């Protein structure tokens, strides 16, 4: 296998599958799923420490920050102020300047509020953050995000947790042509073929959480996703044959009786 590393803002990543850590049964399952997936980037959320029950375990006791790139998100933030506040808290909690920036529009769709996203990204970039924005499948917004200094963009395939797969492949393809930074398809993947398709289209990576954590067997799905992302990437690099309406024989005619 040839060397095919993903580089974002000078950081190298081995895996093109990135995974979230929410919704698992327990931390042991989280750890196992991540291990099996082969992902080296994992997203985490920032929340209040439980001060009434200190017996509760910490996620980072299970996921070694030396082994994985921990990518804090601003999940659950609906305003620029909240998203900026959570990003600053994530940095203060001491992992890095990386943040997966989410500014959500409404609870029902969890679609990004792209106007708020651009505003928050601008503030955080000025403060030295490496902002990876969770955005809509909108090529114009993607370009604006890159223009203000985002070193990658993370357009959704479909609403978070919906499992609908890639709703607008043409927009994603336009984004891939429009911006010259890595594109990480984030959210909406339902099963392995969705992830493979995203990679075949030319995505640089795929980020998912629910598709694995919500599967009947999360560990098996984690493995499926690993192969899907890898296969999709190889197929993309290999270059697929064009689609044709009629058949083309694979066996030669010469030598036939």
């Amino acid at each position, binding site marked *: 296998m040839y060397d095919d590393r993903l580089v974002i803002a000078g950081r190298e990543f081995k895996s093109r599958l990135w995974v979230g850590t929410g919704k698992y049964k327990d931390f042991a399952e989280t750890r196992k799923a991540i291990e099996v997936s082969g992902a080296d980037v994992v997203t985490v959320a920032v929340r209040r*420490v439980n001060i009434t029950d200190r017996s509760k375990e910490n996620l980072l006791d299970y996921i070694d920050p030396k082994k994985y790139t921990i990518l804090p998100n601003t999940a659950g933030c609906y305003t620029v102020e909240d998203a900026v506040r959570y990003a600053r808290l*994530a940095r203060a909690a001491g992992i890095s300047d990386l943040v997966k920036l989410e500014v959500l529009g409404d609870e029902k769709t969890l679609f990004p509020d792209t106007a708020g996203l651009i505003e928050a990204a601008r503030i955080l970039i000025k403060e030295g953050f490496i902002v990876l924005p969770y955005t809509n499948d909108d090529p114009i917004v993607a370009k604006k995000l890159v223009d203000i200094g985002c070193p990658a963009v993370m357009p959704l395939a479909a609403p978070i947790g919906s499992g609908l797969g890639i709703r607008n492949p043409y927009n994603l393809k336009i984004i891939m042509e429009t911006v010259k930074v890595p594109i990480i398809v984030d959210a909406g993947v339902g099963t392995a073929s969705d992830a493979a398709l995203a990679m075949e289209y030319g995505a640089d990576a795929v980020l998912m959480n629910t598709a694995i954590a919500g599967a009947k067997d999360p560990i098996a799905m984690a493995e499926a996703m690993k192969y899907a992302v890898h296969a999709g990437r190889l197929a993309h690099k290999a270059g697929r044959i064009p689609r044709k309406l009629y058949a083309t024989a694979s066996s030669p005619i010469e030598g036939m009786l």
Partner: protein
Amino acid sequence: MAEAMQIQVNGLPRDCRSGLTVGDLLRELDIKTERVAVELNLEILDRKDFELRSLKAGDRVEILSFIGGGGLVSRERMERGRTDV
């Protein structure tokens, strides 16, 4: 003898002695300072200042850390919202 005072920690009222530092509070709560962020009255504190910052009555302290997350919804909510398209 130190006087008692009340502060708010993660939204809950808490009685403590006056002059308590943020570092003292974290030790009282058995919270390791690595990988937590502390916000004091909306100001995010530098970790090296935890031992320097004394708390006063009415202060609002938020202590945050990383939890599992990718998207937003909890498993319960995901189950509740389950509808086939």
